[in-house]
């Protein structure tokens, strides 16, 4: 009945024998011990459990661990290298894009996906882009400001990197 899975999480390989019904979010939290991915609804409506699956944002409460077999996951713990913060994390800090912090990991990973697809989103594109992630504390304005600030930071860094490469 149980299945063997091999999932790479934040660059580290995790092997386990799991029930086919085990949700990816439970695999991350209970098997891999990464509790930065939160559960807010278990029905893919709140986005607190958002992670990157092969670089794309998915809600890990509606992905089975067996579906992630052989694939690569990035959780909030793995977004930034070592002690540094990712520019999106920095921007959420600087713009007060969080209060209780519960939706924040999912919100940041959702913003990451949005900025991969659209490096300079407009206010409306940001509001639509984070539409799958709920926040009850902020009224969203500071989150929108944070995503804008992150976009500026990432574009600047990309330009600087391009100049350095020239």
């Amino acid at each position, binding site marked *: 009945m149980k299945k063997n899975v091999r999932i790479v999480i934040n660059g580290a390989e995790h092997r386990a024998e799991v029930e086919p019904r085990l949700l990816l979010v439970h695999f991350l939290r209970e098997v891999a011990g*990464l509790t930065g991915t*939160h559960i807010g609804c278990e029905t893919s409506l*709140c986005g607190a459990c958002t992670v990157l699956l092969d670089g794309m944002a998915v809600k890990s409460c509606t992905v089975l661990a067996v579906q992630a077999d052989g694939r690569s996951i990035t959780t909030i713990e793995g977004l930034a290298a070592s002690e540094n913060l990712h520019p999106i994390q920095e921007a959420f800090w600087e713009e007060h894009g969080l209060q209780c912090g519960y939706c924040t990991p999912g919100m940041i990973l959702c913003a990451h996906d949005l900025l991969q697809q659209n490096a300079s989103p407009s206010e409306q594109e940001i509001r639509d882009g984070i539409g799958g992630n709920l926040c009850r504390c902020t009224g969203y304005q500071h989150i929108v400001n944070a995503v804008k600030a992150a976009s500026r930071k990432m574009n600047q860094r990309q330009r600087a990197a391009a100049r350095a490469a020239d």
Partner: protein
Amino acid sequence: MASNGKNNGKAKANGQWVGKRFKRKEDPRLVRGISHYTDDIKLPRLVHCVFVRSPHAHARIASINTEAARSQPGVLTVITSADIEGLGMIPCAMQMPDLKIPAHPALAKGRVRYVGEPVAVVVAEDAYTARDAAEMVAVDYEPLPVVLDIEKALQKESALIYQDFGTNKAFTHAMKSGDIEAAYKKADRVVKVRLINQRVAPTAMEPRSVVAEYLPGENRLTIWASTQIPHLLRTQVAIMVGLPEPAVRVIAPEVGGGFGSKLNVYAEDGVVPWLSMKLARPVKWTETRRESLMVTIHGRDTINYLELALKKDGTILGLRAKVLADMGAYHQLLTPLIPQLTALMLPGCYKIPAFDCEIVGVFTNKMSTDAYRGAGRPEAAYDIERIMDCAARELNLDAAKFRSKNFPQPREFPFTTAAGLLYDSANYQQSLKRALQLAGYDKLRARQKAGWKQGKYYGVGVSTYVEICAIGPSAATPAGGWESATVRIEPTGKVTVLTGASPHGQGQETTFAQLVADQLGINPDDITIIHGDTLAVPYGIGTFGSRGTAVGGTAVYYAVEKLKIKIAALAAHLLGAKPADIVIAHGRVGVKGNAKKSMPWGEIILAAYTARSIPAGFEPGMEATHFFEPSNFTFPFGTHICAVEVDPETGEIKIEKYVAVDDCGNVINPMLVDGQVQGGIAQGLSQALYEEMVYNEDGQPITGSLMDYAVPKAAHIPEFILDRTVTPTPVNPMGVKGVGEAGTIASTPCMVNAVCDALSPLGITNIDMPLKPERVWRAIAAAQAAVPPPAATTAKSARTARRTA
């Protein structure tokens, strides 16, 4: 102008750190996802439990068969009410002369009275097994008549939820001042309106969670809980499970939002620790979102009959109100308190010579109501601000001028209201004026008039609110209204602050550090705020009622002031000066007027610990505790203005502008205040426009998931234009009033006023919330059917009228 949280208006910067936009100390751990909420707690031998809940709103429990569940591999036990005879009742903290408090067992005994009421608990080695086994618990129910509508519940023929009480009425309470009969006799006009304040679900993003670990050898019970009140929870759980209070430790780790819903003691808070004691294993329960919407307290749910007696020039003569409040089936911790707060704040920011208010609490077969962001005050603001708009319209007065006419003048403060409260300080005129300017009020009105002639429905909503905060003087609160703080300057000079005001997203670790940094002339990075652990922190009350800074922060302030006296005494001794001449600033302790005489901060603090040379009578160490008892509440206020356009063909509401001018006294961190205001407005607007906890005729909650219960998304909330006026309170030395609930209180009536204003040419005076397009469209259609369209009808509105006729 402050907008978008960037430019922070006129916040008074009265120190190096206080008043500054300072990044939160909490955030690095939160944005990295490396901190811990309750469900993140892992313990060796941890087992999981799942509650079996009633599918009926009212039924007799004929039998419960747990055999099949028990026999499942991995199941440790299955518990029903018969097994928990020793566990105490779920507490209600309120005492009132005629209050009926039903027995509230943690697991239903013989009868269930709302859908979701816990009936049994399954404990298993893992959560999946517990869920599976919970499905196998067979309960035989005999359904009983269901009581849902609070007006019908009070009728003689209604079924009863408690036979013993002989009524569904939980309490009545009257509040009077002045001569209401004389006011009615003198009045040129009495304006009447009936308002429904619908039931809503707080919906913190983190569901509730409890982990309990009992160690029999040590006789020590540790509880991790997602709570706003760790100390009160500890006291209540100790009583429920029968342990001496010192044996119980409550830890509130990161708490993912509360909004009042975690200011409570729930069935699970008692059952999970009890299970850990019985099994001698750590036990975890985490709420699903479905459970959260069903069995975490709800807010609001009142029917309000209001009458305002007026002179034709707009002078208010009297306010009469009857508020019917749905308690749900049982009282939770503060359920009956909430409508009392409504009654107290009904007079709003107006001079009302005569006041007559009756509130009635009613039992129904629903989940309990209790404190939800604003807790009774949003209902009061909604009542008074809605009827103020109705009155302005009936008297053909401008909504802003009419309000202003009835404001007390700034020189009249402290001002005693019709409900007997003493408002501390305010300048309502200034706030209104600023908001009118920011909104471009005159232009909005001109456009509105022009629009009506073209069949365009523009509306302007005004809400001048006042709220009661910094809860509060202990004499006026059910469980103590003070707050505690211990400040310890460690031998290294670093500072530890222990606060009883355990936060859940408000940012006290930052604001308290800013405050203490200024008092001691050190850097906020050298200050650590500890909260939410009853073993570390002296007894405290918690964070709710916009009290964190105004009461908790004030306790910190006074504790630091005590230490400053101690530092001055020691420094005077060591530097050969008078204590009165000691100056503590910029990381040094020195003597006024003598630059040569000073010591580094670290040296003087270490001297207090080494104690080799101390003045006579000096207690070694550097720690002080203060329990701050406030002399009064504080009364923040402000003006919100909203401009909308309503599409008569679809009932859709377009928010064109939202201006908020709030006054919370002095500001410690303007960025955090903006965050509180924005989040608050979003929640209040969302009640006006989207949210409603709906029960069907059988008492089934049918908004039981986030698919059905409309928590707003980013695109549903507009950008707000924010500004502040600053009127410090005399109630505390920092002059801070509190801001956690302001937005929620002001925005709901502001939004509904705007929509009703837009539709006033159709004769529409009220639409009950939430203002979903369908509901607005129906109101428009009904109005158009009743009254022929105005003379200046355009082809478009005539088309609508034909279609809806």
